[in-house]
């Protein structure tokens, strides 16, 4: 009985023990299989996750390269901003430290409450910002008292700063926060405070100026506390850029252009107050927060002129001035524009955002006549002695093409045709040599195509040809087209930069210089000679000299005194729209000032100094500034005088 029971039990036990053992073995195999899955099959994925856990990569922001003018004056600079931070674990009592701090710098009760709240929410080792944008004085005070301010540290940040604000904004451009479309996967771009160039040189040379971000790998624990800093890649600071620009000249030119023929008065001047009272409400709005007022000769307050001034070195194409008005303050992008402000800026009829010097296209008007003259001389179809009779108009079929001088110039020769800017003479001359000849010459002087300036946004302008007209309008070329082309009207368009380049190439003896604004380490290209008869060029330059210095010259008003510098140049008045015959006859269009601003003529001037050995060429375009001799010429004269004054000072150094 005992034996049987014992055997039964043992049999059951053994059988079931085997089942149990198999079960355990199965479960243990499951564990092994799971380990295989996690560590071998999925191993790489988890290795990545583990590395993500272990290392925090910190990006060291590169210092943005600065932009200088030719004298080393910073146009785009990096300003330090100081920021105070507090780290909880480095002080025994946060609120005690803060109250000590509040006796040194200005922090309000509310700030302290906010900081204490922040400190509570963050890890003990996370810095919390106490104050941003501290002044040097405040920083000094904090630094001196540092022993009594445990846990407080000073942090330096960089802010892009443009000392000349709106003076060269269209060239320099501005930086702003990175937009969604600009993200390229570069982690630097994803940082909340990182800024990149959005226009002008800041955008064009972004890769050069930005530098390369450094990287600091930091080993962190589960709480995010830094355990150890690993070898650092410091990155590379951005390269500085040096420009051919003379910022003081640029500022002079911009301010002179803005003033036009008006008087600059302080706002509290009684005359200014009177002028403001007489002005329209829009003008009063315009001067709302200004310190100065422009008052025109009739005693009315007027808006600042808009337009462009370009000064170019005729020997090499270096740009000394490339001003476009009006501008805006790029520093405002640091704090950001309000929606309303930005709308006001981008919708401004005067085009704040365009760099008019390179992208504004205007009919060259009479400034184009030199090219027609040169084309005629080069073609051999005319000489200096070629004369035409100007009765004040030219009849072609049923059309009359008018001269600006109502009663006509009478018999006039080539030199005086430039000096007095006779339109009829150039209708005849253009008719004689033909549009192809004019277009070829114009193009070889840089018109009708981009000049190749190292700035973005250049417009090509337009020099019409037979093929162009047929292709664009579907109509054949008429003689009338040739006639208006001869005085730089009709289809002709040129940018202020092209006009300056044209003048420079006339003045430098036909050297095909290319304008540039960035001084680069690469040697300048050899300058090609355009193969133009030097005598012809001299004759054109002489005619331009006469335009200012002969008694009947259209630019005679700007002729200076005996000791003043001599200027050669040419005025131009570009019609914005075709003037109807009725208006022409009634002669009412001469009262340009009575027209709405947008319909007034553009006022142009091109010229060069010194007359004998040309060094600098200028072009001035005053948008809707009316007559060229009236507005643009005096501005150009003042700028050229300043250029020469600076040139003397520079060469004396």
């Amino acid at each position: 009985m005992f034996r049987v029971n014992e055997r039964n039990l043992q049999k059951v036990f053994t059988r079931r023990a085997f089942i149990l053992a198999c079960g355990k073995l199965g479960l243990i195999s499951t564990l092994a299989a799971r380990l295989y899955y996690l560590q071998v099959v999925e191993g790489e994925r988890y290795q990545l996750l583990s590395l993500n856990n272990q290392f925090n990569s910190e990006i060291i922001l590169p210092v943005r390269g600065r932009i200088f003018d030719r004298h080393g004056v910073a146009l785009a600079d990096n300003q330090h901003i100081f920021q105070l931070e507090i780290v909880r674990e480095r002080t025994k009592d946060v609120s005690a430290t803060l109250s000590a701090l509040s006796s040194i710098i200005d922090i309000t009760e509310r700030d302290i409450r906010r900081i204490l709240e922040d400190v509570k929410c963050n890890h003990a080792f996370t810095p919390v910002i106490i104050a941003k944008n501290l002044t040097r004085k405040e920083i000094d005070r904090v630094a001196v008292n540092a022993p009594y301010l445990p846990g407080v540290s000073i942090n330096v940040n960089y802010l892009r700063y443009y000392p000349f604000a709106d003076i060269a904004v269209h060239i320099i451009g501005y930086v702003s926060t990175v937009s969604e479309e600009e993200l390229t996967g570069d982690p630097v771009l994803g940082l909340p405070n990182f800024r990149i160039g959005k226009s002008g040189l800041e955008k064009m040379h972004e890769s050069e100026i930005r530098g390369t971000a450094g990287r600091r790998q930091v080993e962190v624990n589960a709480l995010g506390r830094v355990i150890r800093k690993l070898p650092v890649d410091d990155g590379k600071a951005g390269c500085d850029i040096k420009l051919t620009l003379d910022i003081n000249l640029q500022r002079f030119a911009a301010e002179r252009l803005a003033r036009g023929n008006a008087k600059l008065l302080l706002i509290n001047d009684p005359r200014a107050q009177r002028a403001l009272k007489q002005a329209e409400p829009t003008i009063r709005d315009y001067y709302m927060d200004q310190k100065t007022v422009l008052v025109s000769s009739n005693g009315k307050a007027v808006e600042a002129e808009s337009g462009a001034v370009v000064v170019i070195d005729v020997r090499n194409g270096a740009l000394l001035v490339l001003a476009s008005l009006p501008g805006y303050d790029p520093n405002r992008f640091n704090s950001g524009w309000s929606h309303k402000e930005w709308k006001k800026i981008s919708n401004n009829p005067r085009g704040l955002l365009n760099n008019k010097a390179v992208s504004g296209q205007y009919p060259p008007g009479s400034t184009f006549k030199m090219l027609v003259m040169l084309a005629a001389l080069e073609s051999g179809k005319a000489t200096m002695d070629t004369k035409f009779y100007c009765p004040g108009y030219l009849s072609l079929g049923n059309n009359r093409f008018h001269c600006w001088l109502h009663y006509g110039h009478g018999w006039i020769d080539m030199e005086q045709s430039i000096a007095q800017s006779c339109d009829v003479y150039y209708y005849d001359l253009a008719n004689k040599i033909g549009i192809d000849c004019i277009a070829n010459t114009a193009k070889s002087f840089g018109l009708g195509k981009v000049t190749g300036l190292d700035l973005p946004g250049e417009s090509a302008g337009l020099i019409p040809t037979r093929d162009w007209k047929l292709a664009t309008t579907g109509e054949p070329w008429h003689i009338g087209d040739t006639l208006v082309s001869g005085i730089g009207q009709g289809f002709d368009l040129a940018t202020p930069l092209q006009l300056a380049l044209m003048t420079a190439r006339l003045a430098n003896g036909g050297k095909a210089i290319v304008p540039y604004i960035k001084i680069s380490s690469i040697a300048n290209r050899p300058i090609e000679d355009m193969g133009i008869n030097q005598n012809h060029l001299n004759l054109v330059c002489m005619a331009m000299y006469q335009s200012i210095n002969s008694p009947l010259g259209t630019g005679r008003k700007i002729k200076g005194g005996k000791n003043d510098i001599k200027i050669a140049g040419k005025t131009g008045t570009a019609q914005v729209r075709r003037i109807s015959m009725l208006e022409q006859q009634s002669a009412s269009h001469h009262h340009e000032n009575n027209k709405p601003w947008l319909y007034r003529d553009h006022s142009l001037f091109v010229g060069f100094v010194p007359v004998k050995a040309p060094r600098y060429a200028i072009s001035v375009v005053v948008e809707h500034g009316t007559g060229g001799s009236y507005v643009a010429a005096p501005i150009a004269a003042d700028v050229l005088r300043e250029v020469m004054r600076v040139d003397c000072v520079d060469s004396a150094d």
Partner: protein
Amino acid sequence: MNQSNLTISRKLLSLNWFIVFLVAVISGIGCLMLYSAANGSWFPWAYSHVIRFSIGMTLMLSIAVVDIRFWMRNAYLLYMIILFFLLVVSLMGEIAMGAQRWIKFSLFHFQPSEFMKICLILALSRYFNGLTYEEIGKKLKLIIPLLMVGIPVFLVLKEPDLGTALIMIAESATIFFLAGVRIWKFFVLIVTAMLSFPLSWHFLREYQQKRILTFLNPDKNESSSGYHILQSKIALGSGGIFGKGFLRGSQSHLNFLPAKQTDFIFTMLAEEFGIFGGTCLIGLYTLILAYGFFVAIRSSSQFGRLVALGVTTTLFLYLFINIAMTVGLIPVVGVPLPMLSYGGTAMLTIMIGLGLLLGVSVHRCVRISSYWY
């Protein structure tokens, strides 16, 4: 041959020293891992681990040479004593880690639920040793052992300690199974348990519910409850084949791994020594399990057989639950890895158990009549 008359020295000689050696090796590995867990320091864990191991080893060897009839005779007494302590704990024990598991003595924390696992094996084995195969088939005869399991499980669950309760239920079920309780009764039990699960869900503590929920969907809440499982899986997975090297487990050393010196020590091992180290350790444990199986088969008494496989199963349960938890196969339950995890009582429990196992082996020829008593 009557082994009961052997001298102590003869008994020591007949001990299976290979198993003792294995236990020492596993504890040694535990020591290394605790050294690593403290970022390469003997303090605070590795040092205490060595001391506890020494105490455990002495205890294990002492128990092994004691005649198993002594344990049989005193099985109920030991069970009653521990049950008394369990009652004390549930009435006035100190609250620690959200659970009343400890009785604080002046020198060490005494965790009666741990010792209950061993005493339960002894008491059940003794009970079934006294039954014939026919008697086991009678339902009335199962009431007493069910109560013997039920009362401590209830007390442990009240503490609450789900891990220990699970182990106690599982090891008791194994003993019931091995003793010859009819299979259909287990099915009935399993079905009832499954039916009552939705009901018992409400009796689980909130954190226990949460653990089960996070286990079912660990990636959903990365930073809180699912964090432990996920970080453990990352640590394991990133270990690869041969691991990151001793003291180089970034997950553990940078504190991404929770409870790395206790419940998650296996993860740390697998991170630093890879799948190679992990499977080697499992292999070492399997050797001990296999040994337990053969000891049980060869024992000539039902008591010896049941104790041997009961202890083996307990060891298996510890290691399976712990490792399965760290590799994300089951929810997080607070079960340490025997002889590796830092913590005194778990180590003592297993070494006492292994002492009994060795003892059964030494006294395998001692016959114990089922009519004893």
